[in-house]
């Protein structure tokens, strides 16, 4: 039996269109960009499959190709056994898409009215649709707010309504594009539990989850694929991620007396200025403390004072920044 999502040698090139001004002046348009290059992967049935990558890695382009909004430049894609080039309708019936974009609803209509409208686009009508909407609103704890305008919803409620919309036609496959991006930690935790326990655990849906959040990937995903600059860097379980993710450590230093970060401190370390004279340093520091000691000594040599130094978790962005430095 074929996997729910099969992607083989997929590529997507974005060619910028020439503006009228560029045509008249015969100037060159912006450079072409490979958003995806030779991407191959299979999402097994019933899995929560993570798509990890920094901004611009190609995650959203890949999800939009799967949901038939963008045509690939090359390669083949099969979703639910259907070829993307031939059978868009069948693919769209097999898929539900949850984006983090709050704009994709009618803000003056109620949550229920929104669901009723989008349900009709999946050829669901009448009592069957009303029952399905009532069931989903109840499952997603939106029943009491169902008849309030969407514009009055909190971010968490909007995200749950987006989830309800994606589930209207009960698809076997769900695409989730950073579903917890705009949620507070408690709402994000509830949504993750719903994804893991209800959608995947109870309903056995196959989930393809694009995320920035390493902890989210660790909590939810059975397998992950890491994208960088449109290429697959690696695939496996989160624990199996290649060592470039593992050697990363980050520290928050509170430093006084330094107005800018000197070049001598940038050796393999990503620096970010935070508020209140704080600096965030991320990179491979090693386990023996030597590199950190040298770094602190350099701060002192340059006339700075280290007020405090605490170890923190590196962000996924910092990990990917490091990876992208290493990838040709």
């Amino acid at each position, binding site marked *: 039996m074929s996997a729910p999502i099969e992607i083989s040698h997929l590529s997507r090139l974005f060619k910028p269109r020439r503006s009228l001004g560029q045509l008249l002046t015969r100037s060159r348009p912006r450079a072409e960009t490979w958003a995806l290059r030779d991407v191959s992967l299979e999402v097994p049935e019933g899995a929560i499959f993570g798509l990890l990558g920094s901004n611009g890695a190609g995650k959203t382009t890949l999800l939009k190709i799967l949901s038939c*909004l963008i045509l690939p430049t090359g390669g083949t894609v099969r979703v639910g056994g259907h070829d993307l080039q031939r059978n868009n*309708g069948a693919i*769209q019936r097999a898929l539900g898409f949850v984006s983090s974009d709050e704009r994709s609803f009618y803000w003056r209509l109620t949550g229920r009215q929104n669901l009723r409208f989008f349900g009709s686009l*999946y050829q669901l009508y009448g009592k069957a649709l009303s029952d399905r909407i009532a069931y989903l609103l109840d499952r997603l704890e939106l029943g009491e707010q169902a008849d309030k305008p969407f514009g009055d919803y909190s971010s968490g409620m909007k995200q749950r309504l987006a989830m309800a919309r994606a589930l209207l036609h009960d698809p076997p496959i769900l695409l989730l594009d950073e579903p917890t991006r705009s949620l507070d930690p408690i709402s994000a935790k509830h949504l993750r539990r719903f994804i893991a326990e209800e959608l995947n655990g109870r309903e056995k849906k196959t989930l393809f989850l694009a995320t920035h959040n390493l902890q989210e990937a660790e909590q939810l995903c059975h397998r992950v694929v890491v994208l960088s600059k449109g290429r697959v860097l690696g695939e496996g379980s989160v624990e199996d991620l290649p060592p470039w993710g593992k050697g990363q450590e980050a520290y928050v230093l509170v430093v006084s007396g330094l107005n800018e970060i000197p070049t001598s401190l940038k050796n393999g370390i990503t620096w970010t200025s935070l508020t209140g004279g704080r600096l965030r340093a991320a990179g491979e520091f090693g386990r023996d403390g030597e590199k950190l000691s040298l770094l602190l000594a350099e701060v002192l040599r340059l006339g700075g004072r280290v007020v405090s130094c605490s170890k923190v978790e590196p962000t996924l962005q910092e990990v990917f920044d490091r990876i992208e430095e290493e990838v040709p």
Partner: protein
Amino acid sequence: MTRLRTMVAFFRKDLLEEMSYRTAFVMQIGGILLTVSLWYLIAGFLKPPEGALPEFPGVPYFAYVLVGIAFSHYLWSALSSFATKLRGEQLTGTLEAMLMTPTPIPLIILSSALWDFFMTSVRVVLYLALGACFGLQLRFDSLVAFFIILLLTILAFSGIGILSAAFILYLKRGDPINFLISSASALFGGVFIPAQTLPHHLGELGRLLPITYALSGIRKSLLSGTRLQDLLPEIFALMVFVALLVPLGMAGFTLAVRKARQEGSLAQY
């Protein structure tokens, strides 16, 4: 049947949205009342000479211009509604959500304009009803011909509107169809004055526009009570426009969708 139910869903959604903007609806009625009153005064002031409306002997200029203005709203509506709706859905992000569903794109576009055509019909009825208060006399002895011409008019104008939406989908802004057709129709289509009265045979350009035949047929049926068999030239001309413009609009739109998917700009604005 499912397509019809989908169209009803679009209509219902637009109705619910429109009902949340009650003031705008009241202001529209006020605007129509003002337009009718203004043209009643202008027509009374201008008093065109005898024979200025050669095809409509005995019909007052107020009746001529009011019917022209009222029914030309179908053209403005077709030209704007497909493109405006599409752009509105792009801006609100709902277009992307719709395009991810298995509903065919042409059905989405057609259904999006239903509410606008309904509201245009309400506006036209209001124009005629208010006109009647100012002395407009309508003939109802050729209603079958009137409805045939009206249906063909809406279809022909929709073809142009869909083509206009195709430009918006691909170019995002700068739709040349809307500008060209609306300007030419206002000038040469006989909305305000008969095209034959324009200097240097400029009125001949009106023969290339569907609005000329639409307004001629509607005026003849509603103002002169002309019978169906005498309106066949207008009906035939409109049928030719429908046969040309609807497939052209659909083909243009399909091409625009394909190009936008290739470029990855389908839901961009």
